[in-house]
């Protein structure tokens, strides 16, 4: 008899989701889907608000990546004003973005994914958590917590608070960067570099023990999209969009992110509130693409900082053309963390960061503004329309996580096909269910970016028979 397996909630990600696996009468996987069960409504909430309020409002979209949203929103506001903001303001925004990517990646790698990596995919569920790591590798965990603390502290120094900073807006930023903050940040740098380097070495050594996961947990060809600098290097604040394919061929470059809606479309599918973005010239689903750490490393020709460049060159050797294994998002995240620490150190030596000209003042000059940046999970776009008084008449937020939606679904299906062993009367093993979740965790999805949710995420795994009847399900309730 055919069955349906439901994993709900997907744990150790941000947001609410479930996974459904359909089995045929012989117990083989027919299909699998990743469902986002939250509803997103932020665009509608924006209507009627003055565009000057948008950065502060958008900062509240997410507690994990508020800096990304405030930067994209501020840049959309800059465009509405028609101004080029002062260098000091640009440097502050860049600094906050590097710090946010660092702290968010630390959260993903150390807090959420390291239980799988250090304790194994088949470890008992009660052992796959942060607390078990205090026994398994105390120093590793301590360093991870410190790294996130460092990133949050930098954000606090730049933006006034660690979560939901509101210091950036249309035309620049609200206050100067404190000169005294440089010494404190520089004091953290050696430890941060050391911790990331140790984690990188550890992760590389661990890869051999995850060969099945590397090969079968989201290993497929796709396009990759990211922002790059004019010389093709990693760029997180301002640049052009480049797209490469699985063979590493450049499909498109020098695309203007302010015109993203002309080359990116969104498809809808049943069973999920999250849309499926795609590259318009290729259509859907052929034009699906991946964003985030793996995509950025695949798209960029170089990192632009010494240590990260060495790691990037080594990383690129792991693929033929592009690196297509989703499991390598973890390693890519660590390379980016190294790059962010190096960039933060560079900015501490940049005198422009301390400048007191931090605002470009202007009245409303345009009726549409678009802002983008590289968020921890990928490229983020905000597009606003306003009336003659500057009141919002429309908003479109294209969130990084949603751009990985198709890829996450493919990863779940591939993982299910490889790892689910179901007989007529046997339940799937806990390790199998965990691999389904781990396939999603590679992407570190932040579903809360699309909607707000409270409490612990629930997850459901459903097993359907060939007629779509629910045969078996496993549910984990929210706390």
């Amino acid at each position, binding site marked *: 008899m055919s069955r349906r397996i439901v994993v709900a909630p997907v*744990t*150790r990600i*941000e947001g609410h989701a479930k996974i459904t696996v359909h089995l045929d009468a012989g117990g083989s996987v027919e299909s699998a889907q990743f469902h986002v069960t939250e509803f997103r409504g932020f665009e509608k909430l924006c209507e009627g608000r003055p565009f000057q309020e948008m950065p502060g409002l958008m900062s509240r979209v997410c507690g994990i990546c508020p800096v990304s949203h405030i930067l994209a929103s501020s840049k959309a506001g800059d465009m509405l004003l028609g101004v080029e903001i002062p260098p000091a303001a640009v440097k502050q925004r860049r600094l906050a973005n590097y710090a946010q990517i660092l702290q968010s990646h630390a959260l993903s790698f150390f*807090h959420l994914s390291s239980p799988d990596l250090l304790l194994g995919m088949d470890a008992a*569920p*009660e052992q*796959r*958590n*942060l*607390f078990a790591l*205090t*026994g398994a590798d*105390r120093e590793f*965990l*301590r360093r991870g*917590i*410190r790294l*996130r*603390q460092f990133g*949050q502290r930098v954000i606090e120094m730049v933006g006034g608070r660690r*979560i939901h900073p509101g210091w950036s807006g249309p035309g620049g930023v609200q206050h100067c960067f404190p000169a005294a903050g440089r010494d404190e940040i520089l004091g953290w740098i050696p430890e941060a570099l050391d911790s990331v380097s140790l984690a990188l070495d550890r992760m590389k050594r661990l890869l051999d023990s995850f060969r099945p996961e590397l090969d079968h947990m989201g290993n497929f060809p796709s396009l990759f999209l990211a922002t790059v600098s004019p010389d093709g290097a990693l760029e997180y604040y301002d640049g052009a969009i480049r797209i490469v394919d699985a063979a590493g061929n450049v499909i498109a470059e020098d695309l203007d992110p302010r015109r993203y809606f002309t080359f990116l479309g969104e498809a809808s599918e049943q069973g999920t509130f999250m849309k499926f973005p795609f590259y318009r010239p290729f259509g859907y689903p052929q034009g699906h693409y991946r964003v985030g750490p793996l995509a950025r490393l695949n798209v960029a020709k170089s990192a632009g900082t010494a240590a990260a460049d060495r790691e990037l060159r080594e990383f690129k050797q792991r693929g033929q053309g592009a690196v297509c294994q989703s499991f390598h998002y973890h390693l890519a995240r660590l390379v980016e963390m190294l790059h962010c620490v190096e960039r933060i150190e560079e900015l501490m030596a940049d005198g422009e960061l301390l400048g007191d000209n931090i605002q470009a003042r202007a009245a409303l000059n345009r009726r549409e503004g678009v802002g983008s940046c590289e968020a921890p999970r990928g490229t983020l776009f905000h597009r606003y329309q306003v009336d003659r008084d500057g009141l919002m008449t429309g908003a479109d937020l294209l969130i990084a996580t949603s751009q990985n939606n198709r890829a996450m679904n493919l990863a779940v299906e591939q993982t299910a096909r490889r790892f689910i062993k179901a007989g007529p009367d046997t339940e799937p093993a806990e390790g199998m269910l965990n691999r389904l979740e781990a396939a999603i965790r590679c992407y570190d999805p932040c579903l809360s970016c699309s909607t707000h949710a409270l*409490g*612990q*995420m629930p997850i459901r795994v459903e097993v359907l028979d060939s007629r779509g009847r629910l045969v078996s399900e496993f549910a984990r309730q929210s*706390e």
Partner: protein
Amino acid sequence: MNALLIAIGNSLRHDDGAARHAAILLRASCDAEVRIKTQLTPETAAEFAGRDHVVFLDADAAAAKVSLEAVRDVCSPASLTHTLGPREVVALARALYGFAGRAWLCRIPARDFSPTPGLSPRARSGAAEAARRLLRLLDQIAAHSPSAPPGDELIDSLKEDAGTQGPRKTV
């Protein structure tokens, strides 16, 4: 005595801001370091290093009256996802940062967590009472042993005495 007070809550969720209110009262009335947080995170554990006493203040819908209790050391969570309480943070602090001091939790009765600022009269009076009790706690701990954490005997006596003695300072 090297004490850290951590008030938890969101002042935009009505009575959830009770602990913040108590923290503001305490800041004006004692020398102990008082920090205000919307929620606890693993990073909070790192702040315990070198502390003799850590006191959490939190609004609690299940509390019938202001209460003060020791936070148990033993903690074996099934998983860590989106929630972290005083017990988990204390356990992390002991495991990762060598925290060997005492931890306390002061619960403030609260009923209304709707998304509006301000406190109900009950939560406001509870916050004031919590501040008075914590001042007494700090006073008694300091009087008993200025440099070392108190033993179980004192902890028990403090719990029994809480609310029965006059405040050192007026809140």
